[in-house]
């Protein structure tokens, strides 16, 4: 019994990272109707830069680097739009190119090593369950952040504009809502949140240059489990995925645990009606 509790708690703690990655995914999907494949790469860049610089300055440098990459992606997005590209899969493809390029840059500069740092050496023990302190800190931070974002989206005028732009882009543009500005902001938010996720991973499980695609896909999986509409649902999706992964690792094998995010994505996509409206092709 204690074992199950331990797995669940540990899973929830590690799932918080997925929850954090789910936020930019769902924001991006709702406001731009596409996916930023580079979110995982922002995480990697942030972790690598922070690892090299070190200290509090490292944290800032890491986030800055991630934001700079996201800004670059936003410029690509704007350029594509300016060129008359309205195809969302092309935006996704471009971000895929950026993700590949960034991962390769990290490989070239830092090599194949894993980026990991430990701020705490001894695990805490709560009611017989051993907990990694960093995991608890991550969880608390992410919970706070997602809660704040949720309030921001639901109760501020910025949030209202975002939701309006998401619901009907043309209508929102006519109501003089800066749709394009919101979309660019969403890309930048992807850099910030992705970078933050990278820093938190750096101080807990660690990551290497192969991580980005898996991180992106995990974030996406977490975002779609309970419906892609809101960060709060993404948060619970992330926890669910983390717990499933921890249970799989405990009771099945490391192989199954490694497959959990991908299986979640496949399962949700094959059973849900996610994105099915596209079949009607937006026809009236």
């Amino acid at each position, binding site marked *: 019994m204690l074992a199950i509790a331990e797995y669940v708690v540990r899973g929830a703690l590690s799932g918080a990272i997925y929850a954090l990655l789910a936020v930019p995914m769902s924001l991006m999907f709702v406001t731009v*109707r*596409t*996916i930023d494949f580079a979110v995982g790469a922002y995480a990697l860049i942030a972790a690598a830069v922070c690892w090299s610089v070190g200290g509090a300055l490292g944290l800032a440098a890491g986030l800055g680097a991630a934001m700079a990459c996201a800004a670059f992606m936003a410029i*690509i997005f704007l*350029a*594509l739009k300016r*060129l*008359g*590209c*309205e*195809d*969302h*899969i*092309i935006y*996704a*493809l*471009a971000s*895929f*190119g*950026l*993700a*590949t*390029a*960034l*991962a*390769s*840059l990290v*490989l*070239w500069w830092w090599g194949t090593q894993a980026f990991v740092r430990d701020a705490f050496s001894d695990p805490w023990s709560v009611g017989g369950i051993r907990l990694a302190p960093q995991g608890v800190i991550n969880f608390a931070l992410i919970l706070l952040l997602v809660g704040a974002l949720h309030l921001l989206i639901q109760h501020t005028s910025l949030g209202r504009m975002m939701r309006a732009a998401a619901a009907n882009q043309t209508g929102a543009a006519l109501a003089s809502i800066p749709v394009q500005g919101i979309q660019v902001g969403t890309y930048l938010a992807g850099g910030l949140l992705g970078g933050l996720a990278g820093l938190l991973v750096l101080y807990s499980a660690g990551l290497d240059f192969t991580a980005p*695609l*898996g991180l992106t*896909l995990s974030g*996406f*999986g977490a975002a779609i489990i309970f419906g892609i509409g809101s960060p709060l649902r993404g948060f619970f999706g992330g926890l669910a995925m983390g717990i499933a992964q921890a249970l799989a690792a405990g009771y099945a*094998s490391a*192989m199954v645990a*490694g*497959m959990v*995010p*991908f*299986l979640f*994505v*496949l399962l949700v*996509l*094959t059973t849900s009606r*996610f*994105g*099915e*409206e*596209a*079949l*009607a*092709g937006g*026809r009236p």
Partner: protein
Amino acid sequence: MSFPGQRYLGPRPNTLIIAVCVLVALPVVLTRPVWTDSAVVLGVYALLGLSVGISYGQAGILTMSQGAFAAIGGYAAAILTTRFGWPPYADLLVAMALPAALAYGVARLVTRLSPLATALATLALGSVIEILIRNADALTGGYIGLAGIPSVGAINTPAGYACLAWGMIVVTVFLYENLMCSAYGRALNVLRVDQARARADGIDVPALMSAGFAVSAAVAGAAGWLYAHYISFLSPESLDTHISISALLMAVIGGAGYILGPIVGTLLFDGLTRLMPAAELQGFFYGAALIIILLAARTGILGLLAGLARRLRRPDATPAPRAANLSPQESLP
């Protein structure tokens, strides 16, 4: 002008072009061992590129699992020949049928979704297959891999493999062009641009998309089969996500919507990679090239050339006298 087989090849310009190019280039390539080896590896990549062309360029499925399909084909070949003693050409059928069946099944489940969701499903599928291959030690040899895969019948020299590889490419282009010149090929193009129009035409959209994806997976499986027999050794790193990504990028860069686009992309790209200073930076150049091509010529290099040719032919033709918003997806190659 007339030549043997004109009735069949006349309306198949792409097959004709690739056949002539291969016949002219191969004798030259075979004079140097280094070139010969490259020709085989390039052939494998070109086949994978073609498989992306069928799936993304024609059916509109942005596929990120071609490497995994190739791995299934490769492992099917390796396991059947080394463990069960199959003759090394009979396994080609399995190497193609297995990924095709898997692709069809998965596609039936996900192609009713938006193109973006389908793309993610292929990425997840590829990742799952990769993990399974790594961990099924008893079958695939796990991390160590499988060695001693026999060569294909009498073909046991690099030159032989180069001929086999490019022969397979000519045959694939021929079949691909057959498909595109048929009602089904046209229907694939319709459903890529407008699924509602496709359904009103009487097309069973999920079934046809899945069939297209299955053909694409079969071609990828054939590429894996060729790779396994040529290298004679297969490990999880041989045909992984990295390969899926490169194949996708090469196809898009060459022009995924054009039958020969992926082959052009592969040749050009390989040339560029050889000039590069560090192997680690390969991904950087791939990604940068993809972004540049998306910005500069979304329909790929062949699309760019076709546009130029059109302008040369009709210099007075206004570039776009069509109504705005006519086809929101025209950006697809």
